[in-house]
């Protein structure tokens, strides 16, 4: 199975320790292009810590994280945080939304294209003054912003203050903003948290659309099992910082180790798989 997935992100033996606590312990897995890879696990399993390692918040003590571009791999643990987006082209969203609340919706998306605009203005103010190249870049940035606003259904709210949008729209805007950085890997930290079933369903459509139309890889932390089982192509299960399973959604949900991790050891032993599955879906 793994052989059919050309790796985009390869995480190898990553260990992130806080004092004596191994938040992520010798973790290896890979995420592929054009696939949605979900990372699941009980609370405290190390999912967000893993994301923080991938996006440069933490530098893991051990291990390697390689992102494979066409022109060769980029090692994420060696990059400064702003180079994660500009060089490695990894974008992420947050569990607690982190928009620039006091900027307009459109400006949030333009900031995400800062690198291109700075290059076009030759990194200086002088470059702004009537340079055709800059105007072209600005126009392109606006077009891309409008494209994503349209995708997430916020075109009518382009000039609203981002902080004034309803919760569900803010989530979608955060995804649009991440996509405006033109990533090859998009990391989503609980994108469905706090969404109602309808919004959650729309989100599924948006994410599968990104996968199919833009050909990038998605890495997803999610507790909502309907999202995980509904859209992911590959599931990695963590518990206490270790990987306990990695497989397709259908097989992961039947994996005894996974069921044990979610339900605890004793209660689960007598449960028939169908029941265990139902309990799991409720959790």
């Amino acid at each position, binding site marked *: 199975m793994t052989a059919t997935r050309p790796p985009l992100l390869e995480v190898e033996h990553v260990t992130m320790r806080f004092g004596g606590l191994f938040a992520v312990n010798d973790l290896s897995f890979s995420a592929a292009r054009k696939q949605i890879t979900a990372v699941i696990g009980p609370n405290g399993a190390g999912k967000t810590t893993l994301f923080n390692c991938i996006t440069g918040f933490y530098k893991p003590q051990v291990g390697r994280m390689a992102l494979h571009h066409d022109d060769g791999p980029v090692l994420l643990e060696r990059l400064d945080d702003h180079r994660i987006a500009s060089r490695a082209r990894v974008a992420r969203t947050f569990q607690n939304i982190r928009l620039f609340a006091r900027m307009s919706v459109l400006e949030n998306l*333009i900031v995400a294209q800062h690198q291109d605009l700075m290059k076009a203005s030759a990194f200086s103010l002088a470059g702004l003054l009537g340079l055709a190249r800059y105007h072209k870049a600005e126009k392109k940035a606006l077009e891309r912003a409008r494209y994503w606003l349209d995708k997430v259904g916020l075109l009518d709210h382009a000039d609203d203050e981002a902080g004034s949008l309803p919760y569900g729209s803010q989530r979608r805007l955060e995804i649009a903003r991440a996509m405006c950085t033109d990533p090859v890997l998009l990391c989503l930290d609980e994108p469905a948290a706090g969404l109602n079933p309808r919004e959650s369903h729309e989100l599924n459509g948006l994410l599968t659309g990104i996968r199919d139309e833009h050909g990038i890889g998605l890495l997803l932390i999610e507790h909502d099992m309907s999202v995980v089982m509904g859209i992911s192509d590959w599931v990695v299960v963590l518990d206490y910082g270790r990987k306990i399973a990695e497989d397709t959604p259908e097989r992961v949900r039947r994996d005894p180790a996974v069921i044990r991790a979610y339900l605890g050891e004793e209660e689960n032993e007598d449960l028939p798989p169908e029941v265990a599955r139902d309990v799991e879906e409720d959790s």
Partner: protein
Amino acid sequence: MEYFLQQLINGITLGAIYGLIAIGYTMVYGIIGMINFAHGEIYMLGAFISLIAYLITTTIGGGSVAIGLLVALAVTMVFTALWGWAVERIAYRPLRGAPKLAPLISAIGMSIVLQNFTQISQGARVKPLPPVIKGGVTLMQSEHFTVSLSYLQIAIVLLTVALMAAFTWVITRTPLGRAQRATEQDMKMAALLGVNVDRVVSTTFVIGAALAAVAGLMVTLYYGVIDFYIGFLAGIKAFTAAVLGGIGSLPGAMLGGLLIGLIEALWSGYFSIEYKDVAAFSILVLVLLFRPTGLLGRPEVEKI
């Protein structure tokens, strides 16, 4: 009436100078959440550099005032900006992420260093500059009092308005300004979107220092004397202006500067000139007591 008008003119001129310095305080506070207590010294350095640059260019260039001033303006902005950049690089950046008190103490230390450096390298005596831009227009005349508006005052106000317009354009319309505002709201997130945050912070210090440099040049021309100690009082006054306007708010800094200038001019005009500093700082106390967010500031919301 005439007297009031004259004080108004003086107050606006003074306010323009305070406003230019206050922008540096408020920008730095907005972006890294610290009070840059060395900013007054940057302004003082600007005054010294402008004096030196003006004397050199007029000596070499045959004494043309206009060219001398323009060259002095450019040279002062560039060199003072360089000082501002270096201060951030040396004294503040290594302390990013340290407890908030650490960069504050570093700033006070930097302020003492710059003061003493200037005292030793330039001497402790006041440096005079004979009036460079002379003359003016008489606006109103009664038997007791003449209201005059000097060309220098006009130049100061016009230059300030032009700089603030340019500055506002940079902040609201350019990628640089957008990155600046994004970094101000969420530094980590801005970095994750590919914004080089260190460079943005450096640029903030450079812009703040360049504006303070212009204020330094203006004061050198306006008062005609400078010494190594002028940064302290002007710095604290501009800080007061920034707090009055709402620290972190750019229009607030401009407004606050104007108000502090007016309060000071009117107070010294109608009450006592000895107590003008007391008046300005009483405003600081009152603002902190009754409206800690300032006139245009927003309440601090704890970031999650």
